[in-house]
C-alpha cells in the first residue's frame, strides 16, 4: 500500500502540469481567458461571433467539450437558459455545475442594467436578472477579469503567479485602451439612436448615446411591417442619427427603416469574431467605435 502510494506520488510528480480546459459560452469570454491565461490553458468557445447568443443548440460537440472542462465561463443572467442546462446535465461533469468552483458567471461581477420590475412574458423574452449583453461596456471587463484571474489561480495554483501577472498587465493595458476609446468616442456623446434588438444598453451607457426606440416590439419578437411603420412615425418627431444592429441579426428591419428615415444602418460586431476586424477584445471595441463614428458622418 505504502509502496503503491509512493509510486503514485512519483507518477503524479513526473506528469507535466495538465493545462486547464476552459469552456467559454460566448467568444468574448474565450478572448478574456486568452488574455489572462494564454498558453496555460486550452480554450474552447461554444459559440462563434456570427451566432445569435439567445439561440444556441445543445449540440453533441458542446456536450463532449463540457464533459472535460475544468472551468466554464458564461455570461449568466439567463442568457444561456435555452441550451446550457441541457449541456451541463448531459456532460455529467460535476466540476462545472452551478455553484461549483468550475462555474464562472461574468454577470455576477457587474452592475446589471434593465432589471425588469415586472416579470411577465407578455413583455417579451425579458431576462429576470437584467439585460445580459454586458460585453459591450469595456469597463465591465475590469471586475470580471479580476475575478476570473482569481478563479484561474484557485483552480490552477501552480500557475497562480502567471495569472496574477497577466491580469496586472491586462488591467494596465485595458485602462489605457478605455481612456483612448473614450477620447475617440467623444462625438458620440448625447447622440440619439435606434436599435433593432435591445442589445446595446451597456454600450449606450458607456458612450452616453440615447436610445430613442427599438425595432423589436418586445425583446426577441421580430418587428412586423406595421410596427416598423409606427417606429418610422416616431422618428419624424424624434429623429435619430443611426440604427444599430448586431452582426448576427437579419439586416432587413434595420435597412427598411434606414432607407425611409434616411439614416445610416450600422452593423456592429457585437462580440469577438462578429466580423473580420474584431479578432480580440481590443479589436472588438476598435471596430465598434470605427463603425459608430462612420455612422455619424
Amino acid at each position, binding site marked *: 500500500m505504502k509502496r503503491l502510494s509512493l509510486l503514485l506520488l512519483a507518477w503524479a510528480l513526473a506528469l507535466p502540469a495538465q493545462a486547464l480546459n476552459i469552456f467559454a459560452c460566448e467568444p468574448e469570454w474565450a478572448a478574456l481567458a486568452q488574455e489572462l491565461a494564454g498558453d496555460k490553458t486550452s480554450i474552447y468557445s461554444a*459559440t462563434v461571433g456570427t451566432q445569435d447568443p439567445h439561440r444556441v443548440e445543445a*449540440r*453533441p*460537440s458542446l456536450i*463532449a467539450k463540457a*464533459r472535460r472542462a475544468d472551468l466554464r465561463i458564461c455570461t449568466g443572467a439567463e442568457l444561456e437558459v435555452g441550451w446550457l*442546462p441541457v449541456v451541463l446535465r448531459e456532460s455529467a461533469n460535476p466540476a462545472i455545475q452551478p455553484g461549483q468552483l468550475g462555474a464562472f458567471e461574468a454577470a455576477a461581477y*457587474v452592475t446589471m442594467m434593465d432589471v425588469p420590475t415586472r416579470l411577465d412574458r407578455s413583455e417579451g*423574452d425579458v431576462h429576470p436578472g437584467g439585460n445580459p449583453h454586458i460585453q459591450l461596456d469595456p469597463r465591465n471587463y475590469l471586475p470580471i477579469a*479580476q475575478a476570473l484571474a482569481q478563479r484561474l489561480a484557485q483552480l490552477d495554483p501552480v500557475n497562480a503567479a502567471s495569472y496574477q501577472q497577466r491580469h496586472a498587465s491586462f488591467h494596465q493595458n485595458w485602462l489605457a485602451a478605455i481612456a483612448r476609446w473614450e477620447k475617440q468616442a467623444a462625438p458620440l456623446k448625447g447622440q440619439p439612436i435606434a436599435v433593432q434588438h435591445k442589445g446595446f444598453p451597456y454600450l449606450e451607457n458607456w458612450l452616453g448615446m440615447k436610445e430613442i426606440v427599438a425595432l423589436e416590439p418586445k425583446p426577441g419578437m421580430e418587428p412586423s411591417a406595421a410596427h416598423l411603420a409606427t417606429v418610422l412615425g416616431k422618428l419624424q418627431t424624434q429623429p435619430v442619427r443611426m440604427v444599430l444592429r448586431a452582426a448576427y441579426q437579419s439586416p432587413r428591419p434595420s435597412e427598411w427603416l434606414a432607407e425611409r428615415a434616411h439614416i445610416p444602418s450600422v452593423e456592429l460586431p457585437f462580440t469577438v469574431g462578429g466580423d473580420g476586424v474584431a479578432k480580440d477584445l481590443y479589436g472588438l471595441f476598435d471596430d465598434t467605435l470605427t463603425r459608430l463614428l462612420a455612422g455619424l458622418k
Partner: protein
Amino acid sequence: MKHYLLLGLALCAPLNAVAASDEELRTLRDELKQLKENYQQRLEQLESRLQQAEQRAAEMPVAAPVAQVRSEPAASAYNPAISLILAGTYGNLQLDPAIPPTGFAMSAHSPASQGFNLGESELGFSASIDPRFRGVATLALGAAGGVSVENAFIDTTALGNGVKLRFGRFFSGLGYLNEVHAHAWDFVDQPLVYRSLWNNQLGEDGIQLKWLAPTDTFVELGAELARGRGFPGSDRTKNGSGAGVLFAHVGGDVGASHNWRVGASLHQTQQSDWQSAGVPDLLGTPGGVTDAFTGDVRTGGVDFVWKYAPDGNSSSTSLKLQGEYFRRQQSGLLSYNLATTDSYAVTQSGWYLQGVYKFMPEWRVGVRYDQLDPGTATVGALNAANVISSYGYTPRRTSVMFDYSPSEFSRLRLQFARDQSRLALPDNQMFLQYLMSLGAHGAHGY
C-alpha cells in the same frame, strides 16, 4: 522560494568544493553573496508589485454580492421549476383513425384523433434534490380528464467521469425521437414506425446507465433495464427485468455551420399473452379475430440527425434533416382466435425521413415520408389456413407541415398528410395544432 534556492545552492556547493582551492572558495563565496543580494532585490520588487496589484484590485468597484443572488435563475430557487404545456389539435380525417396500418393489426396503435381535441397538454416539475440528485416529473393531462405519469425519474448529478444514472419512469434513450416530448415534435404526429413499433414512444419503469467518453467527438453509450411496461413489452410483475435496451450515439460538428448525430439501438423483451383484437384472417371473418402472441421480441435500429445553419446562426434560416430505421423480429406462439396455438415468427420494419427548413425567422416548413414493411410471417401448420402470412402491401404516408412561432413559447401548425398506410383506404388528412409553453423556460435538447 528564497530558502529553496539557497538550499539548492548549498547542496550543489560541496560537490564542486571537493577539489577547490582557497581562492576558488573565496570567489565562490563572493558569487554566492552576490546572487543572494540579487535575488533579495528581485523578490522585494515582485512583492511590491504584488501589493500594488492587490491594492488596485481592492479599489475596483465590484457589485458582486447583489448580482450574485440575481444571477441564479429564478426557476432554480428552492421551489421546483414548473412548466405547463398547453396543446391541442383539430384533425380532419376522412377515415376512422382507429384502423391500423395493413399488416400491423397486432401492433399497438395510438393514432391522431378526429375533430377538436386537447392534445398533449402536460405539467412538468424539475429541481435539484441535493448535491447528488435531480428529480423530474411530467404529468400528462388526459383529454378525458385523467392525469397520467408520463415521466418521473431521478438523475444522479455528481458521479463524475461522464457517468449518469437515471431511475424511475422515463422515455427510453433508443433512437432519436423516442426521448423527445410531444410538444417538441416537428410534426403533429409520430412517424408510422414509432406509432406501430413503439406505440408512439417507449416509456419504461427502470434504470438507465449512460457514459459519455472523454473525447472531442461526442460518444455516448447507454444501457437500460426495465419492467417492460411499454409496448412491445408485457408489464412484468415478477422479480428481474422485463426489457433491456442498449444504445450508442456519436456526434460532432463540421465547421461552424453543420452538426450531426448518429445512433444505433437494440431492444429486447418478451411478450406474454399480448392480445390484439380485429386482426384480419384468411377466412375473412367479419370484424376480424382476436389473436394472442407469446414470445421474444427483438428490435434494432439506426438513426441520424443533421443540422445546418449558415455560420451557425439559426435565427433566420436553418435546415434539419433526420431519419430512422427500425427492424423487429418476433418469434413465439400465436393463439389464433384465442383457440388454436402454434408457432409464429415475423420480421417487420419501418423508416422515415424528414426535413424541416426554417426559411425566415418564425416560419418553418417540413416534409416527411414514412414507410412500413409488414414482412412475411412463418406460421405453424395448425394455423396455416387461418393466419395471413403476407399482406403484399407497403403502408406509406407523406406529410407536409408549416409552422409559425411568434416567440420561443408559442407555435401554431398546419399539417397535411396523404396517408396510404391502409390497403385500398387512402386518406387525406389535415391538422391544425397549437403548442404553448408557460412557466419555467425549459432548455431544448438536441
